[in-house]
């Protein structure tokens, strides 16, 4: 499918891709360092979704750039006139925290407190510790899309035409609540919603094929009334950015948008790829070094 893009913008776009890739490399460094720092957490899904979150927060989403105390972004819970993002698969909090910090919501130094006592960076994202950028707790799977739909409905009631994004896991699709939400959004024409599934084919006990065959998620979401599109390689920044633009473009037409995003669990760190093994374990010192050697430090480590 050919998309018409004016020449100047195209140049600009390609430059941005390089910049975004640099940010993603740094975010990946943050992720492996964070999970190593507390010897727990979930690197696999985090690495796989890095390109998406960077693409969202550094290019696709409109976010207020108003600064507050300490020069950090001033965060408004209600997000009026901003695009909103919800992380339903809360276990991939490392990528979320790194992107929020790198985007300017709080000091990157705070990433070192991840999963430690008295931290705002809880094992799973929460509003309870008032970390800027988080709008709901997640971790117990299957709940985020419902919350995102509620936020999207509120935008409509408020006459606010910005979008709501939500990311879910593919294993997470096994939760019944997802299908309650999936049926609600088309019925109520929630067309300011873009949902993304991290189609990495892995979950804790093995591949999704083995554990609980998700079969054709495209056919399922179509049957439930969604407009479904794909990102063939969710670890290619250019494809991610194009995919997000397309999703935005086809939104607003009475249907919610579902992006099936193919990724590789552990993307960016060779030995973390290719299986479910790195879903939820931390690298040791040696493994950390091996991982960092593959990830250029582009913005300075925290």
């Amino acid at each position, binding site marked *: 499918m050919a998309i018409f893009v004016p020449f100047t913008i195209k140049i600009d776009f390609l430059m941005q891709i390089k910049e975004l890739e640099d940010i993603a490399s740094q975010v990946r460094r943050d992720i492996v360092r964070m999970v190593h720092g507390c010897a727990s957490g979930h690197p696999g899904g985090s690495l796989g979704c890095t390109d998406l979150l960077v693409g969202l927060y550094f290019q696709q989403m409109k976010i207020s750039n108003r600064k507050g105390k300490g020069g950090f972004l001033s965060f408004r*819970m*209600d*997000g*009026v006139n901003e695009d*909103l993002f919800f992380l339903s698969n809360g276990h991939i909090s490392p990528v979320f925290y790194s992107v929020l910090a790198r985007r300017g919501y709080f000091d990157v130094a705070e990433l070192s407190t991840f999963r430690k006592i008295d931290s705002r960076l809880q094992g799973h994202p*929460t*509003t*309870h510790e008032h970390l800027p950028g988080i*709008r*709901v*707790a*997640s*971790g*117990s799977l*299957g*709940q*985020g*899309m*419902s*919350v*995102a*739909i*509620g*936020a*999207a*409905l*509120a*935008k409509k*009631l*408020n006459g*606010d035409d910005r979008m709501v994004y939500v990311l879910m896991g593919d294993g997470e699709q096994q939760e*019944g*609540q997802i299908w*309650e*939400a999936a*049926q*609600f959004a088309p*019925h*109520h024409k929630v067309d300011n919603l873009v949902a993304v599934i991290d189609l990495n084919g892995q979950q804790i006990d093995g591949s999704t094929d083995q554990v609980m065959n998700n079969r054709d998620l495209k056919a399922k979401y179509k049957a439930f009334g969604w407009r479904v599109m794909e990102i063939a390689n969710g670890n290619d920044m250019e494809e991610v950015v194009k995919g997000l633009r397309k999703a935005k473009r086809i939104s607003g037409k009475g249907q919610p948008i579902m992006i099936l995003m193919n990724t590789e669990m552990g993307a960016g760190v060779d030995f973390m790829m290719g299986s479910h093994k790195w879903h939820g374990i931390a690298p040791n010192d040696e493994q950390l070094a091996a991982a960092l050697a593959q990830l250029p430090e582009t913005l300075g480590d925290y």
Partner: protein
Amino acid sequence: MKKYTYTEKQDTRSGFGDGMTELGRTNPKVVTLCADLVGSLKTATFIKENPERFFQTGIAEANMMGIAAGLTIGGYIPYPTTFANFGSGRVYDQIRQSIAYSNKNVKIAVSHAGLTLGEDGATHQILEDIAMMRSMPNMTVINPCDYNQTKAATIALADHVGPAYLRFGRPKVPIFTDPNQKFEIGKAWTVNEGKDVSIFATGHLVWEAIQAGEILAEKGIDAEIINIHTIKPLDTAAILKSVRKTKCVVTCEEHQANGGLGDAVAQTLAQNFLAPQEYVAVNDSFGESGTPEQLMAKYGLSAEAIVEKTLKVIARKS
């Protein structure tokens, strides 16, 4: 000193519905949701007057709770509604994570709590929701006693910031509280002052306690009857003040003995002031089909049961 006047009978859920009607007219931020039980929840007028502020979720309570949480983010005050069983046990984890732990301003409003839903039987007669909601951090738990109080509580909750669980019932029961009351969350209401026993009652049991009080008065027993409409935060000051005077307690609730108001009171007393206590509550069993009156009698939730437990607890005073 009698502080109540019986007027007529009405269901507490209509108090909720009429409270919602008023909120629909006065508070543009109030929205409501329902999981295929609109008629039972009495929100028809709110919906008719504010169709854009109502969301039908179909039979999908988990999603309803999540959507309610999301609506708060845009500044709304959602009242998700269903039967008490489907708004508590069915969705505990959703309430816990997306509402209570996330501190979302959601007012869960549930009808048909307890045995008095009657003929539908045990699958619908939740008697454990107070235990669940009371053990959940950050949750306000309210179980009003009549139509007027339910209406007032519904309205008061819109101005209270934070998650809440409002529990009410199906059958028509006496109205006896002030139609113009201001509902104070967390502040127990003394129905009758007395000196011989403290009867703490919640929900439909408050009227039974009043009836019991009259029977007891004939026997020369001066009962203090206090309406604990807010189970959490519990008005421990009022409870302790009363028990320090009367030296014994009967707790009354349309709920399991395990985990409910009785246990909340027992906890308070065990840590602060020891006094014998008897429970008027369901004794660790499921309910069944029957009329509300039959069930209240069979499961020991009647005025007579309260009288019996009162005599027993007074005899236990040392």
